[in-house]
């Protein structure tokens, strides 16, 4: 049995959940697929439009999600479903929980995969390594089960196959599972599309010279394109933008259809978070900036001038 696990931020299934359905169906090859939905039961009902057997885990201890509590809940459902393959999105929560689940199930872990095939006990997956410069193939060669985290925004979202049933599961969480106390939380992004789900990403670097200039150029362009906003490490370090926007080795890894790099010089650490984008555009005043080595289209110029001009041109094109 293949079990996919997802949370439901804001009570809704994230896009990554439907991507997991695609992977689960692919691996099941017509066999049974189940889903565990951590969140309100309404989100589990949404999942029942895609997956025949849905386990709904709705408990105060699981909101906000904490690694140990989610791990215990996943272990419980995996046992109940008889699952030997567990799929999660390779977002921060998934990357925090999946290794724990793997240890608990004595499972092999395939991390952040962009392709996966095979059958339980002998999976083969493709993933990136060496700061996303290497594409590697990894095979499971041991363990009683397999835990797989799937890179978001890579697999297509699944079509609906309505008629699934929802089983409510009361998670049995002991004191250990709930010992981490969550204090203040902040959600950094406003109404804008999530960076890791965005088809277009506008990234900004130190080339803007100030936080104000960054916001004045990047935000309108992102709005015009319904794009996510990304920042380099230098920008985040300078306090111009929140960590949640950081793309690179220490931040998020994105691979949108279009990545527009504004005032980004192109340090390897940043490139590792976006070098798999389908089309890359860069605007930078330094013609020798390393970013130009990986662009499809480049403009040598001041981002504070070319940036707004590009936003206007995009608006004009979209309006036509």
């Amino acid at each position, binding site marked *: 049995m293949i079990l996919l696990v997802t949370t439901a931020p804001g009570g809704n299934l994230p896009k990554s959940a439907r991507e997991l359905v695609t992977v689960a169906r692919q691996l099941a090859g017509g066999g049974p697929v189940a889903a565990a939905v951590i969140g309100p039961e309404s989100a589990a009902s949404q999942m029942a439009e895609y997956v025949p057997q849905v386990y709904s885990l709705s408990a105060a201890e699981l909101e906000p999600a904490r690694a140990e509590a989610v791990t215990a809940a996943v272990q419980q459902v995996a046992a109940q479903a008889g699952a030997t393959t567990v799929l999660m999105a390779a*977002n*921060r*929560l998934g*990357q*925090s929980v999946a*290794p*724990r689940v*793997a240890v608990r199930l004595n*499972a*092999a*872990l395939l*991390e952040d995969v962009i392709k996966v095939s095979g059958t339980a006990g002998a999976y*083969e997956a493709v*993933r990136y*390594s*060496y700061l996303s410069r*290497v*594409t*590697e*193939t990894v*095979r499971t*060669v*041991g363990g009683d089960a397999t835990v797989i985290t799937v890179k978001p925004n890579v697999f297509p979202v699944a079509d609906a196959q309505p008629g699934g049933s929802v089983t409510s599961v009361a998670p049995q969480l002991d004191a*250990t599972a709930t010992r*981490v*106390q*969550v204090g203040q*939380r*902040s*959600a950094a*992004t406003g109404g804008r599309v*999530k960076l*890791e789900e965005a088809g277009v990403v506008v990234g900004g670097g130190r080339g803007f010279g100030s936080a104000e200039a960054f916001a004045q150029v990047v935000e309108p362009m992102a709005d015009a394109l319904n794009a996510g906003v990304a920042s380099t490490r230098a920008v*985040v*370090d300078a306090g111009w933008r929140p*960590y*949640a926007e950081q793309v690179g*080795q*220490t931040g998020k890894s994105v691979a949108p*259809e279009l990545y527009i790099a504004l005032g980004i010089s192109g340090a*390897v*650490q940043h490139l590792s978070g976006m*070098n798999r984008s*389908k*089309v*890359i*555009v860069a605007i930078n005043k330094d013609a020798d900036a390393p970013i130009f*080595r*990986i*662009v*499809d*289209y*480049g*403009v040598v110029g001041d981002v504070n001038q070319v940036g707004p*001009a*590009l936003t*206007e*041109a*995009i608006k004009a*094109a979209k309006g036509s």
Partner: protein
Amino acid sequence: MKLITVLKQVPDAEARIRAGSGGVDLDGVTFVIDGMDEYGVEEAIRLREAGNDVEIVALALGPARYEEAIRTALALGADRAIHVETDTDLDPISQARVLAQVVQHEGADMVLVGGKQADWDSAALGPALAEVLGWPHSDWTTKLELAGANVTVEHDTDDGHESLTMPLPAVITTQQGLNEPRYPTLPNIMKAKRKELAKRSLDEFGAGSGLTQIVDQQIQTRERLGKMVEGDPATAAAELVRLLQNEAKVL
């Protein structure tokens, strides 16, 4: 209290890596201590400098060449080091089972480990280690404060950040933003040569041969068009939009 910082030695981020028939070819590459792990070493030193009675033990699992990275950690301020030496490329879950034995034997109060490894692009070691030890963990930590038998942290989540309080012992995965790591000074580099570096063999830990195996590695860079668009801002912008619409078809 005893702090263990887990280290990896990885190719320098600027190093040009190649792939041969046997996978990534690291011959002639400059290796450095993984930048993500440096934040952990630095944080341990800062906890000591803040007046805590702290012993810092650097712990590494990897081939003989790792010794250089371990010496760097000793030069930065670690008191002693343990090197589980092996040429086996053990997956992070299996590594966690080995490292946990050392941590347990040492009786550490906190383990600091880099949030994501610059060679395998893996974020699994910290959480897996915490699970084997039966400890709580904080991933992607940007701030850390000791508070009696607890540690309070700030860490990044998928859509922002949050603060967590957890009982010690705990595993903390480190990243940029936690601190600004220092450079080792020459006198400290000299002193580090005399610090204790205990060698252990992987065979002592019953590790087995691992749960996953890398069967192929390719350097795959996408073919890029590399077209430079010229002209004044308005002209260049208009041309760029035309190309994105008609040629790249992404607008």
